């Protein structure tokens, strides 16, 4: 083919990415990525070492042998599986609860005119600005009154809905054309029908973002479980991992093996839903 032919067939150069192998930004990003990834690799490496190797100085980054036995030890010596299931239950119920309650509340704030709507909404928004340390004691007292201390309920119930989720979904619902909902109402749908059949199916990205953020937050939460859970059987992963650290001795290799197992679901979720994480960060600055 001649050059002329090629220029006819190929799409205009403007639409193509520059054909460099990497962007100049990668020169900046690569070292940062390295800094981020080293602890993760170190954790994985340590989880396969013997206890002696973990105490070596300077640290060895290449283990002499791959001790997968560490993983078996963790599963045998601790109720790790139990913690994992606990965390999974708490996280999934929290995610589902947030999706249900935040979309109901968010929709009401976005579309239904009722007495005191704006005042209530501002109050809910204001709670976003109160740090958890301030509300932790009242929340604890309420949970205790409900008789849920040292149960999974203590971890689930206070997190079934959140101000952030209500705010984020309200903002998203406001961007949907109101005529769609009016058309559906004239077509015969009830308010709830409009929400379920028109609004929610169009809110996939926002719901996914909320789900991912709630998952991340609940899975990694340490402080609240630390206060409300005492017995080993009701612990979540984060709490369970802390018990590996003794006052006199820490089995670093076992701790890291447990860490790897607890981080794995997060990594999987992250790779599957990267763009929703990014959107979640982006929408925290959503305009009103």
């Amino acid at each position, binding site marked *: 083919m001649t050059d002329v032919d090629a220029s006819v067939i190929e799409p205009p150069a403007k639409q193509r990415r520059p054909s460099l192998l990497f962007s100049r930004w990668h020169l900046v990003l690569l070292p940062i990525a390295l800094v981020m990834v080293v602890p993760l690799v170190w954790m994985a490496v340590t989880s396969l070492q013997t206890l002696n190797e973990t105490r070596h100085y300077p640290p060895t980054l290449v283990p002499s042998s791959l001790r997968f036995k560490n993983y078996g030890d963790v599963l045998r010596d601790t109720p790790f599986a139990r913690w994992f299931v606990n965390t999974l239950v708490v996280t999934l119920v929290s995610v589902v609860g947030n999706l249900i309650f935040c979309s109901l509340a968010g929709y009401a704030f976005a579309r239904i005119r009722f007495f005191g709507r704006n005042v209530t909404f501002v109050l809910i928004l204001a709670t976003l600005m109160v740090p958890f340390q301030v509300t932790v004691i009242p929340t604890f007292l309420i949970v205790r009154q409900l008789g849920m201390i040292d149960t999974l309920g203590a971890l689930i119930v206070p997190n079934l809905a959140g101000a952030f989720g209500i705010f984020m979904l309200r903002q998203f619902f406001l961007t949907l054309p109101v*005529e*769609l909902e*009016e*058309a559906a*109402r*004239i077509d015969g*749908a009830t308010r709830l029908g409009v929400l379920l059949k028109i609004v929610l199916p*169009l809110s996939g990205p926002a719901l996914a973002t909320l789900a991912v953020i709630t998952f991340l937050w609940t899975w990694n939460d340490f402080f609240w479980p630390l206060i409300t859970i005492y017995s080993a059987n009701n612990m979540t992963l984060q709490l369970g991992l802390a018990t590996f650290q003794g006052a006199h001795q820490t089995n670093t290799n076992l701790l890291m093996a447990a860490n790897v197992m607890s981080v794995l679901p997060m990594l999987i979720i992250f790779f599957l839903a990267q763009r929703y994480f990014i959107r979640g960060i982006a929408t925290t600055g959503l305009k009103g």
Partner: protein
Amino acid sequence: MAEVTLDHVSKRFQEVDAVDDLSLTIADGEFLILVGPSGCGKTTALRLIAGLEKGTAGTIRIGDRVVNDVTPRDRDIAMVFQNYALYPHMSVYKNLAFGLKERKTPKPEIERRVREVGEMLGLKDLMKRRPAQLSGGQRQRVAMGRALVREPAVFLMDEPLSNLDAKLRVQMRAELKRLHQRLGITTIYVTHDQVEAMTLADRVVVMANGKVQQIGRPQEVYGAPANLFVAGFIGSPPMNLLRANVADGEIVAGSMRLPGPAGVAGGEVALGFRPEDVQVVEDGPSFELVVDVVEPLGNLVVVHGSTEGTPVQSGAEEEEELPMVVSGSRTQVTAVFAPELEPAPGATLRVGVAPRRVHLFDLRTGTAIRPRHD
């Protein structure tokens, strides 16, 4: 099918009367058009009938049922929105079927009616597509179809053609008229386009500032505008309006002298005449028209010029319309002539208006002064 009655209906938004004491009866099977400039309350009136807004006063009846407190779903109406409001996540078929499904219509019945409407509107081959995959005209048809399929008592349409390009709009306009003639469903249609209003309506309601200015058949509204606003709003190019004096059986406006109508008291009035009623004359009552701009349109020629006199504002002028620079005590006059007569800019024409084509309005109240024909 049903009659729709509005009885002293008002809607107030904070400080603004969007709809002010609107009383109206739309006969069964009638095609009624609410027309007016933007912000005149026509869309609010439609939304009140739909139940999407709650009125502050008055009664709305559909059939013989008062529907003030009836939800939109139970009013037996269907509405076509300006932006169509098609459900983006549903196929054309599901868009059409949605209303029937919500009303628990049996499935075979849904299929039959969707197929029927699909054939009527030429949507048969598009049933599996999503709205995003349709052209503007096709979306418009789906929006119409979604209303039709419900077989409602009343059709409400909010500027359904305004998002189409000019050619498609003319085509859909004719189609709409055909559809209405065939189905005979009571239709209330909102538009700011007076051509749509004139061509489609059985009756036109001209609105301004939330109030009805005139109700009548298109020809009535055009031929005998009830006030200055209607005179200035209906008709394109709009009616020429200038100050005049009635005295001694004569109307005097600048250099213009016309035989006065019988039975009109003397004093200052607004004189109006339509551009197409301006005719070149040899003698008789006439005035000089200095040609400014000539717009040949093929089948006719629009001539913008000026004559001696003081203009009158009708209140229907578009905001962006700038007052033409007219020197001294001259006023702008638009005339429409046959294409053979194509005057050069700067030429002076001697023109006149037939006495029975002249409209007079009270300068203070704006209402038409109807001469007694003895």
